[in-house]
């Protein structure tokens, strides 16, 4: 799909007012602040979702993901900063914008006493060219619950219906707040497949998640949020690469002190060494050679690629508390 170059994604525009120009990006957020009383839930966050791409906002509960999404959806104003969605102001241009968006809330928003089928058909009737509700009902495995009232659906079933509602109007851009929360494994994979189809068809996606595999699987770009701020941003590959690509685990006798200018080593537990750094072939050879030279009895060598999880845990470990929303 048409993706914009890496260089275009995190450019800070000269002059913070520059954002109001007509833009080709699906979402532009600049220095947005959201406060609840004395608590700052979102603290000067900037991000861009280029058209046709998937951006995942990744973070613990309370990192500020939903608050930021609510600003983009026009549900609340930003206390500072600017937000443009499809080139429009989410609050001032609300009525013009809404038909072009698909919104999936984290919970609620649906008549508890209406049936799944009634609700989906209601939302379909709001659009001039809706998707076939029957197709969505089948795709999302809702056929059995078509005549079940919303309040009687399980959490995962409610989520699936909520996703169907977000998609039924053939939107250009969808906001998915924790799209697979409460879903079983099968529903999660169905949902992932749907989201991949969306982007294949040119829909832009901004989603929040606290699931690393979800971000890694779906996202073109990941923004890791911690306590209301952006902790890291990049493609999943960039994020995993940036921290120092690989890990080498070596098991030998305890008390050795491997040392080199090309890698760093740490004895995690007695006899278990973790070698990190930019481990190209030469550096790997040097590390193993060090153990050989030292006359160590190496009993196991294991190399492992860093995952987004490692990056995420490293970035978020020092502040798990976050803020209350």
């Amino acid at each position: 799909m048409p993706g914009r170059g890496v260089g275009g994604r995190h450019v800070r525009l000269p002059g913070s007012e520059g954002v109001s120009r007509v833009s080709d990006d699906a979402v532009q957020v600049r220095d947005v602040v959201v406060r609840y009383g004395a608590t700052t839930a979102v603290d000067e966050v900037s991000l861009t979702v280029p058209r046709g791409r998937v951006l995942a906002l990744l973070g613990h509960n309370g990192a500020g993901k939903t608050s930021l999404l609510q600003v983009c959806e026009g549900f609340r104003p930003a206390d500072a900063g600017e937000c443009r969605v499809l080139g429009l102001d989410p609050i001032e241009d609300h009525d013009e914008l809404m038909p072009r968006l698909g919104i999936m809330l984290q919970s609620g928003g649906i008549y508890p006493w209406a049936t799944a089928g009634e609700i989906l058909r209601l939302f379909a009737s709001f659009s001039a060219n809706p998707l076939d509700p029957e197709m969505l009902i089948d795709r999302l495995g809702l056929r059995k619950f078509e005549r079940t009232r919303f309040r009687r659906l399980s959490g995962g079933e409610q989520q699936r219906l909520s996703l169907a509602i977000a998609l039924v109007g053939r939107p250009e851009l969808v906001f998915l707040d924790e799209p697979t929360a409460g879903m079983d494994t099968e529903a999660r994979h169905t949902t992932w497949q749907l989201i991949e189809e969306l982007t294949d068809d040119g829909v832009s996606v901004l989603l929040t998640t606290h699931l690393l595999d979800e971000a890694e699987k779906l996202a073109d770009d990941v923004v890791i949020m911690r306590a209301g701020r952006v902790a890291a941003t990049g493609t999943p590959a960039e994020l995993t690469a940036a921290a120092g690509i690989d890990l080498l685990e070596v098991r030998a006798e305890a008390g050795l002190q491997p040392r080199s200018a090309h890698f760093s080593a740490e004895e995690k537990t007695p006899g278990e060494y973790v070698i990190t750094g930019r481990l190209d072939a030469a550096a790997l050879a040097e590390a193993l050679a060090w153990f050989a030279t030292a006359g160590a009895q190496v009993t196991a060598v294991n190399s492992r690629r860093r995952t987004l999880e490692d990056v995420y845990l490293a970035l978020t470990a020092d502040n798990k508390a976050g803020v209350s929303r």
Partner: protein
Amino acid sequence: MSGTFAPAPARAPMRAILRSQIRMELTLTARRGEAVVLAMGVPLLVLLGAGLTHVTTVPGDDRLAFVVPGVLALTVLSTAFTGQAITTGYERSYGVLKRLGASPLTRPGLLVSKTAAVLGLIVVQLLVLAAVGVAVGWRPHGGQILPAIGVTVLATAAYSGLALLLASVLKPETTTGAATLLYVLMLAAGGIMFTTPAAAVVLPLAAHADALRATLSHAAAVPGGDWISLAAWAVVCVTAAIKKMRWE
């Protein structure tokens, strides 16, 4: 690339959107049993109880001429105020108002749909109750029907405004309690089942009932005090609702 989800967003014609939203509002109202009882059962009971027996004292010899217009006014109160306050309170707490406001329906569209559904319900309820009244011996006059409709529209506006106001500032459980309590108080003291002092027309229900009695039972003009009372309630309640309306 299947193309199934290729973007093609466009709002449906507003008339179609409103039609399906109004249908949903009516479906859900019909589905709530207690709302139906409150809206039709209680007025029917009052009509038959106070209209056909002598459990209460009413002015004049023609009990039905007094009671039936009062029951019609009570029905407008129960549907436009009590029912709407309760429904809207829960819809707000469930996030339905917020979600629908953020759909192509839009917030004004949602308000129009709610109003249309309430008006539609009221028309049907009034026709049914008036028919029951006629069946048991009420003899209404048609000459002053337009002023009667006029005061009913004002009362509906006042009640709807008050309902949305209550639903916007209170929790849904509190709204339910307050709306039901007000309904019971008005039923008791609002000049429906027995005579109240003339000053009671400062209350919208008493003014509405008085105006309907004058027009429908006695073919007379709406007393000036009733117009003033209802118009004032409508203006104050609708203005307050617009100012305080909260969607989430």
